[in-house]
């Protein structure tokens, strides 16, 4: 293999690829990046952690097509330290890869290409395209609610499914049992019969990093066991979570008749201030809601107490309710309007929070006993 690549191009692709590679790896080949140079001037960089695979394509001057694998972090560091604007020549032969740029020469040891596990991304039956903005919205508005509890592994991702009743909507949901986030977008053509999938957290995180530099549409293909995102310059393929997502629609309250309208920024700041007193363990904030105002209070036996009043629009009966301050802040941080709608029922019932009844995203938060 022999190819010459411009430093900036190579560095950008490598930075994407190397973030997939696990830092601590007991299996040598998994810390490597697979480099494939084709005769048509295409160079592919591929990295994997066995769950997630990313392939970056970049253009280069290819003298001799071929393929090899070298340590991803090592190559990234070398390319990062080379001067801007330099032309980097990669050539591989006899178990070594030679990197030449200007007056620098590096020789890295390589591992055989056959040892590198490649997930085949071409045989996935369902294909559709989603606008980049929709995908960003799905990820940004739900990922804070993804559970980190490994015993409930089926919650460690975003659940993506299409309603089968012909309404033409696609829903994405994430929950950890205390809070739930759900985003509804219109169902793209081709996705009508897709299987329900749970996209693992690491895939979500890596995908989001790549989305900012993407074109308008992302091509997605998936099966019941794999999902593949074609971002133009990069292709991300991931295994899915092998489990059943719980029927979350049952916890979304439909009959919460007490509506509180409040400025999310003001409420956030208030909650954040009083939560300073709250004990690390529970983080509970009590809200006393009366027509016209919300009293936030925290009482901690060790630290003392704090109260604050926030104005709000409310015309139902007096209500005391407690929430985990961090969860409440997470949700309020997602509200884009100047007014957040908080639908309450009673102090022990799930609470629905959203921008308005037109908004794509809705959140459910379980109260705490205070």
């Amino acid at each position, binding site marked *: 293999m022999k190819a010459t690549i411009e430093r900036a191009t190579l560095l950008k692709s490598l930075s994407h690829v190397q973030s997939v590679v696990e830092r601590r790896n007991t299996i040598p*080949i998994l810390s490597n990046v697979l480099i494939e140079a084709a005769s048509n001037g295409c160079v592919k960089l591929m990295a994997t952690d066995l769950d997630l695979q990313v392939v970056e394509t970049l253009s280069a001057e290819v003298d001799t097509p071929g393929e090899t694998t070298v340590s991803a972090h090592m190559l990234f560091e070398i390319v990062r330290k080379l001067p801007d604007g330099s032309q980097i020549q990669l050539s591989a032969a006899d178990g070594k890869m030679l990197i030449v740029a200007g007056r620098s020469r590096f020789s890295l040891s390589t591992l055989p290409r056959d040892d590198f596990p490649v997930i085949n991304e071409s045989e996935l039956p369902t294909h559709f395209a989603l606008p980049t903005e929709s995908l960003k919205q799905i990820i940004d508005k739900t990922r804070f609610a993804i559970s980190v509890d490994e015993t409930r592994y089926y919650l460690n991702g975003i659940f993506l499914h299409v309603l089968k009743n012909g309404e033409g909507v696609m829903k994405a949901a994430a929950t950890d049992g205390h809070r739930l986030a759900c985003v509804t977008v219109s169902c793209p053509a081709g996705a009508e019969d897709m299987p329900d999938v749970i996209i693992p957290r690491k895939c979500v995180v890596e995908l989001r990093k790549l989305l900012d530099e993407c074109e308008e549409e992302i091509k997605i293909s998936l099966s*019941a066991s794999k999902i593949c995102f074609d971002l133009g310059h990069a292709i991300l393929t991931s295994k*899915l979570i092998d489990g059943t997502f719980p029927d979350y629609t049952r916890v979304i309250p439909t009959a919460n008749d007490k509506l509180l309208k409040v400025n999310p920024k003001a409420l956030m700041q208030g909650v954040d201030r009083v939560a300073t007193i709250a004990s690390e363990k529970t983080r509970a904030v009590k809200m006393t809601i009366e027509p016209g105002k919300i009293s936030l209070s925290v009482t901690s036996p060790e630290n003392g107490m704090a109260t604050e009043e926030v104005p709000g629009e409310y015309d139902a009966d007096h209500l005391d309710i407690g929430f985990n301050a961090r969860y409440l802040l997470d949700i309020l941080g997602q509200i884009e309007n100047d007014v957040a709608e908080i639908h309450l029922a009673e102090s022990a019932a799930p609470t629905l929070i959203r921008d308005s009844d037109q908004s794509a995203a809705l959140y459910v938060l379980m109260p705490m006993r205070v």
Partner: protein
Amino acid sequence: MSKLLGHDTAIKIFRHAEESGRLHHAWLLTGAKGVGKRFFADQAAAWLLANAVNPDVKKNVEPLSLDITGHNPTLSLIKAGSHPDLLRLERLFRDSKEQERARNITVDQVRSIQKLFSTTPALSFRRVVIIDSIDDLERSAANALLKNLEEPPAGTIFFLISHAAGRLLPTIRSRCHLLPFHLLEDNLVEHILKHNLPDISDEECASLVKISQGSPGYGLKFAGLDMAELDNAIENLVKTGDRDFLLRSKLAQSLSLKSAQSRYEAFLERAPTRIAAEAHHLRGEKLAQAIHLWEKARQLGNEAVSFSLDPQATVFTLAGFLARLAPTHK
């Protein structure tokens, strides 16, 4: 890859189960150390994973074999340890000492199975877990395994290697299909030893066959240690009784050298085995005495390395036990 010899029945049972479409999800491979259980597990895992990707692989293989011939991508991945759907649990190397392995397979290692199962398989519908050996599981690890062993996801096959199936938790044993591995005939052992050690002399080979007692892997452990000479020394002790203590002093001196560490460890294993072999021919009071000696020798042999006992004194004592077997000994 070389061939698995002497276990045609096991291969037959396994292949029959696979072809009938009712493959049991957990196989307990039992038998003495070194008969070929691990070899079988590796081959069977490769066989399952390769066939799940490409069903044509099977067509080129003889009916009584699991050997996949020629170049196969699955084999390369398994060899590099990078197959995404295969998990192998064995005792980890200790950080401080390169050669030494931890005493147990830990509960954290067993929990990594859950990580494999929580995502969909990558290359086919199959996932394989090899545990080598299930006897090394610490108690909590064994209990952590139960849930996964009971209802693994579809297409998942376990191979559990056990050198002492009787000691396993009954809850593990009852979930598995038992596949026994028998000791091999001496001529087969000799064949395997010669295949693995092409340069071996006939005398050394004969000595290793004797040590193997049907387990070529056990014999291979002693390869290159000049076991023929060591065995000669042991025989001399047993025959003559070493009345003037010359033999045992010489042996103790030669084995106490730093460079003779592996031979010293081999002797620690060989001495109790030799006493046990002798006990088979004895009756009455002599037998009782031999059993008593065997118990002491075995205990000493087990403790010598972990307690860092002085090699010279240990060999001297063990040689003394051997000498007391001699018919002339009063």
